[in-house]
């Protein structure tokens, strides 16, 4: 399988993260080292993930005839409706052919490699030859403005990706560790914990939280889950492809934060030059982060034909998925 085209779309508002975003120098130094964001893209209240994804997809569809798209996979943590799927909403908005299938993958930071795995399955079964994966995330609207660890991290984006079959066989790894269930979640708004009157009243001045719920994260727990599970998953992926770690040209991990990337890189003994990190520019955009980093690295001319790029998404659940892509 190969990534043929990528496009993106950001909301207009940009929040600069600088010394004035913090109470003192030390906090700012900590942010630069551990988090790494220098700007965030913020969507307006009421904008949904699918709004951003739609714009990204429109840009992409200027480059490819619509009737080529056999399947649309949408990824976001903020779906438009309980039902139908948001992929269905996007299918309608993009006026895709009726024989193009639709599927939502609301799997958070692990969603992109999972979507690639699903696409690969459709290719192998002969059901599709060209698949549009669209991703849209508005996590900034689910962050409590008082939350010190998230308010300067989460950023909004839409990305669209065309994937097609290639001669390189694809392999995938997946996993979930229930120990990490509580470390990252949006508890309210689902069937288990519907929005209560108290919750809604408490957020009258932050209406976006009453729309999307509130993200809660235990950074230390996420770091522990990452170091516990992701190196093993990477080794399994290398085994499936029969590659040595040194043969991988780039490591494209979910852009969670500097500390996550640095800790993983050190544990895996990955040279810094092979670690892709675009947190400064894009922030943590949940499922958009891997294809967004792909887009940027490609634009910078980093990738060359035949390069092996190891992609690994991980987050809520605690769940993960990964694959190795060959640059066409």
């Amino acid at each position: 399988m190969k990534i043929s085209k990528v496009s993106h779309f950001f909301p207009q508002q940009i929040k600069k993260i600088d010394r004035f975003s913090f109470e003192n120098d030390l906090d700012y130094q900590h942010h630069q080292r551990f988090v790494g964001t220098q700007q965030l893209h913020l969507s307006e209240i009421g904008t949904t993930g699918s709004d951003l994804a739609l714009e990204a997809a429109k840009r992409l569809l200027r480059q490819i005839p619509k009737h080529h798209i056999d399947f649309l996979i949408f990824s976001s943590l903020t779906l438009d409706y309980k039902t139908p799927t948001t992929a269905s909403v996007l299918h309608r908005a993009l006026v895709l052919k009726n024989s193009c299938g639709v599927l939502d993958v609301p799997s958070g930071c692990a969603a992109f490699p999972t979507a690639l795995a699903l696409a690969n399955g459709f290719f192998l079964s002969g059901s599709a030859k060209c698949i549009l994966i669209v991703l849209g995330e508005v996590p900034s609207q689910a962050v409590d403005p008082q939350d010190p660890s998230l308010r300067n991290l989460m950023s909004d984006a839409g990305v669209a990706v065309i994937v097609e079959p290639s001669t390189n066989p694809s392999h995938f790894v997946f996993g979930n560790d229930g120990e990490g269930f509580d470390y990252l979640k949006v508890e309210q708004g689902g069937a288990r914990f519907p929005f209560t009157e108290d919750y809604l009243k408490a957020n009258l001045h932050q209406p976006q939280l009453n729309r999307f719920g509130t993200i809660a994260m235990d950074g230390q727990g996420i770091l522990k889950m990452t170091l516990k599970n992701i190196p093993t998953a990477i080794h399994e992926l290398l085994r499936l492809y029969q590659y040595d770690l040194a043969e991988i040209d780039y490591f494209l991990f979910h852009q969670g934060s500097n500390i996550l990337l640095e800790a993983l890189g050190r544990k895996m003994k990955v040279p810094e030059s092979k670690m892709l990190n675009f947190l400064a520019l894009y922030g943590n955009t949940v499922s958009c982060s891997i294809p967004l980093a792909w887009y940027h690295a490609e634009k910078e001319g980093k990738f060359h034909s035949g390069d092996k790029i190891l992609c690994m998404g991980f987050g809520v659940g605690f769940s993960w998925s990964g694959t190795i892509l060959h640059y066409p």
Partner: protein
Amino acid sequence: MDLSDFIHHLKAEFEDFHAVNLSEQTVLNEIEGWNSMHILLLVAMIDVKYNVLLSGEDLKGLGTVKELFELVKHRANL
């Protein structure tokens, strides 16, 4: 596992921020400017260097550097 190596690794992690005269008697959460970021560094460093993953419970009410060293040493030998 050697205590002086352990202190050396800790110093290497923290030197980016401010000079800390770390010793085995230093109480970690009394270090000037100590915050959750330091705990992330500790968790990552101890995993990379000693293959021991500490949890939030382990690190609650952190004591001295020596006590942390003993905890890691104990876990590493399990």
